[in-house]
């Protein structure tokens, strides 16, 4: 298992963002669903080693991220796209991605190729010299994805990766996700259940800091009853599981 989580909690002052999560995730694309404030981003930030857990056990890629050396090893193999990624507006696309390649310690001999490949994979090859301040929101999102995959991570964490992408780009992105999932663990946090249905082999649903469903997208769809809200089976399953968790 690339992600092993036992009894993980995270508090921000008086707010309990993550409340005792147990989770194990292996290779493939894993979907993390949940309403606003469910704790998805906090859980993802802990997996990304951006914040330490308040309590519980977290192991990533068979290493303990609580210790400096192993954490650095994890980070070499990690890709992370936050919910609201930041940009240096004066950087070009290529410079921005190269900057992250250098920070992620991609071997110097492979840096240029890795940068070019990552940019091509998000279909921004023709804009590689464009400054970030000139790009649209969707393009910036793709630049964020490029920096996350530039080191060809073994563990890729994407928080709302399809926000701002047009339908065509979302379809292409799902294809990219499936491809990445063949050799890495990809965790996608999203509100868009159709993305999960299309790209994820397994899925977890969070609510109020806890995981209230863990299984396959088909299993989630099957949880829906006739009365739950939603246009698709998985949306109805999503609504039904949430309603049941809150009842």
């Amino acid at each position, binding site marked *: 298992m690339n992600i092993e989580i036992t009894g993980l909690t995270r508090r921000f002052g008086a707010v309990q963002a993550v409340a005792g999560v147990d989770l194990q995730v292996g290779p493939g694309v894993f979907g993390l669903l949940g309403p606003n404030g469910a704790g998805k981003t906090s859980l993802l930030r802990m997996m990304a080693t951006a914040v330490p857990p308040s309590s519980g056990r977290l192991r990533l890629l068979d290493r303990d991220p609580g210790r400096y050396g192993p954490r650095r090893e994890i980070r070499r193999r990690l890709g992370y796209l936050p919910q609201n990624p*930041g*940009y240096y*507006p004066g950087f070009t696309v290529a410079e921005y991605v190269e900057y992250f390649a250098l920070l992620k310690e991609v071997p110097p001999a492979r840096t240029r190729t890795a940068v070019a490949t990552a940019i091509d994979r998000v279909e921004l090859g023709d804009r590689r010299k464009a400054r*970030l*301040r*000139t*790009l649209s929101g969707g393009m*910036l999102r793709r630049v964020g994805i490029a920096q996350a995959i530039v080191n060809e991570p073994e563990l890729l964490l994407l928080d709302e990766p399809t926000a701002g992408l047009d339908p065509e780009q979302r379809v292409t992105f799902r294809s990219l996700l499936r491809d990445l999932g063949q050799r890495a663990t990809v965790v996608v946090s999203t509100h868009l259940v159709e993305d999960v249905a299309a790209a994820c082999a397994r899925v977890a649903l969070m609510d109020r800091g806890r995981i209230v469903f863990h299984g396959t997208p088909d299993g989630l769809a099957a949880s829906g009853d006739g009365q739950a809200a939603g246009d698709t089976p998985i949306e109805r399953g999503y609504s039904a599981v949430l309603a049941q968790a809150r009842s």
Partner: protein
Amino acid sequence: MTGEQRTDPRLSGRQRTGAWLPTLRLVRLYAVGRRVPWALLATVVCAIGLRLTLLGHWDAYGALQLPLIFEAAVAVSIAATVAGPFGEPERVTGRWLPFLRPAVTVALTAAAVGLLAAAGTGGHLTGGTLDVLRNVAGFTGIGLLCAAAIDGALSWTGPTAYLVAAVYALYTQWHPPALTTPWLWPARPPHDLGAALCAALVFACGLAAITPRGARDRPGSPAAT
């Protein structure tokens, strides 16, 4: 999602008071969004610093340049509040911003002048209150012009550069070649009309520059912190 509210011309006194509350609340939120309380705190710290500085015994040069440094510090703090955190969503909202921007800036400048002048009361504040008023207004004007022309986050560059030039101009009163242009107003006596006019003009231009659009921010640039 709510219906349009119409104002009844026959409002009672209590209702009229109530009508002011949203405005006050808007001013407060505008100020908080632009870190105005922090700027005020910085101004208070500068006033205390000036007071403590005036307790010391300085030579003529030091007595002139040290207050100038505090005046520049409050001015950069005021100019730093011009940058808005919300960008276009805020800019396209109604008619209040062009009033709020200069009003808050003028209020902050007045508060800064008042605090620094109060700090100098009873001390040997070279130049007196007039000097403080002229210098703070002038420095702030430079900061506002920089905010409008370059970037809100870089509004400090102009005032700090001007500070170095102004302190040098003071120095040349003792060491030639002298710099005596009224555009370097801190080096002129407080009653110098030309210097006061230059400082006032720069302040007015700065206010005029930030009133319609605030500080310059570039498309795609994340909001300043």
